[in-house]
């Protein structure tokens, strides 16, 4: 049954950003990704969505805080996450699907930690297998 769940979850996460969110996500640009290199300001491990804030130094040295929306902890655990995986002050590279309107926010795709590990929202087992195409 675990494999059935992981398989379904892998498809779900691969299929569409809007599927993984509890709300409509038409404001997200799903055609592109953006990499943020910065410092974790906050990370909240909570239902139905976890989230993180990443401080990014922009043009002229101005610090911009990006808000990154994530999925639920029950899914993140299967992708190798714990509540302690990131903490304020950590230097990270975060890939997001950004908001269309240019505001500093987006949906989480992956994070590369200071120790070189890269984590996504996809189950660890599913990451080893090719993602199945969406059913609809």
């Amino acid at each position, binding site marked *: *049954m*675990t494999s*059935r*769940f992981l398989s*379904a979850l892998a*498809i*779900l996460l691969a*299929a569409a950003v809007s*599927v*993984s*969110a*509890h*709300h*409509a*996500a*038409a*404001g*997200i640009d799903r055609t592109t990704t953006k990499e943020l290199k910065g410092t974790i300001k906050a990370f*909240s491990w*909570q*239902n*139905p*969505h976890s*989230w993180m*804030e990443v401080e990014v130094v922009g043009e002229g040295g101005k610090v911009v805080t990006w*808000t*990154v*929306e994530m999925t*639920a902890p*029950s899914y993140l655990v299967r992708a190798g996450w714990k509540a302690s995986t990131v903490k304020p002050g950590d230097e990270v590279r975060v890939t997001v699907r950004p*908001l*269309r*309107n240019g*505001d500093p*926010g*987006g*949906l989480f795709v992956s994070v590369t930690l200071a120790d070189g590990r890269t984590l996504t929202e996809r189950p660890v087992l599913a990451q080893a297998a090719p993602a*199945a195409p*969406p*059913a*609809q």
Partner: protein
Amino acid sequence: MRFAIVTFLVAGAVATAGAQQADAPPLGALAPANLNKSRPAAPFDVTGTWLNDIRFKGSWRFGPPPDNVKLKGEALKHFEAARQAQAEGKVYHDDIGQCWPAGLPMIMTRVWPIAMVQKPTVIYMVSGFMNSFRTIFLDGRPHSDPDVVVPSFNGESIGRWEKDTLVVDTKYFVGHHHWIDSGVPASTETHIVERIKMVNSATMEIEYTITDPKGWDGEMKFTKRWNRVDDQDIQEVSCLPDLNQHIPSTQSKDNVR
């Protein structure tokens, strides 16, 4: 004479007892006297944790409306406005993102699992999405008096067994901030019939028939599947203001409200 008096007293006592019984409130679904009533065995038991199977074609959304359905009135206006918003890359009335309940039918197909507990008289459902609570009464009660019932986002569900199928009739919905699908509003007249059956011990299928004389002519029909996820539990979850402040897609200015 003595016989007549005794007869009169006995008849009076029986009548009084009968009147008291008639006035007694109906038994709750979990009352032992209700649970222990003699009933045919249920054809199946949905007790377990279930996740909508998005691999099954059409399993996730309750839309777009089928070709046989003609939207009208406010529903048509909403639908056309939603299509316009979508064409502009905007979100239309993202009420769920603003903490309004998803409600039936949408709550059944969110991407969080649903815990279901079945007793002879009732099925309780708790969604992993906002802990939305749903009750399906199986104890033979009719729908409530419309002058008494409190409308809700999941409505009032009454189930009955038809051979190997559980037929669930649901009405008395909240008619605002409640959507069948993006741009297709539910109303106080929305009526949903679910025909629930087991494909096998680990797969459940539900055929939906949704009508709403206020919103459209015709019947919307959808068939969806769920799989057991035996390694999942439902956790406490609420829609919180400080959470929503950190969800970019609910805070975006691209939401049409």
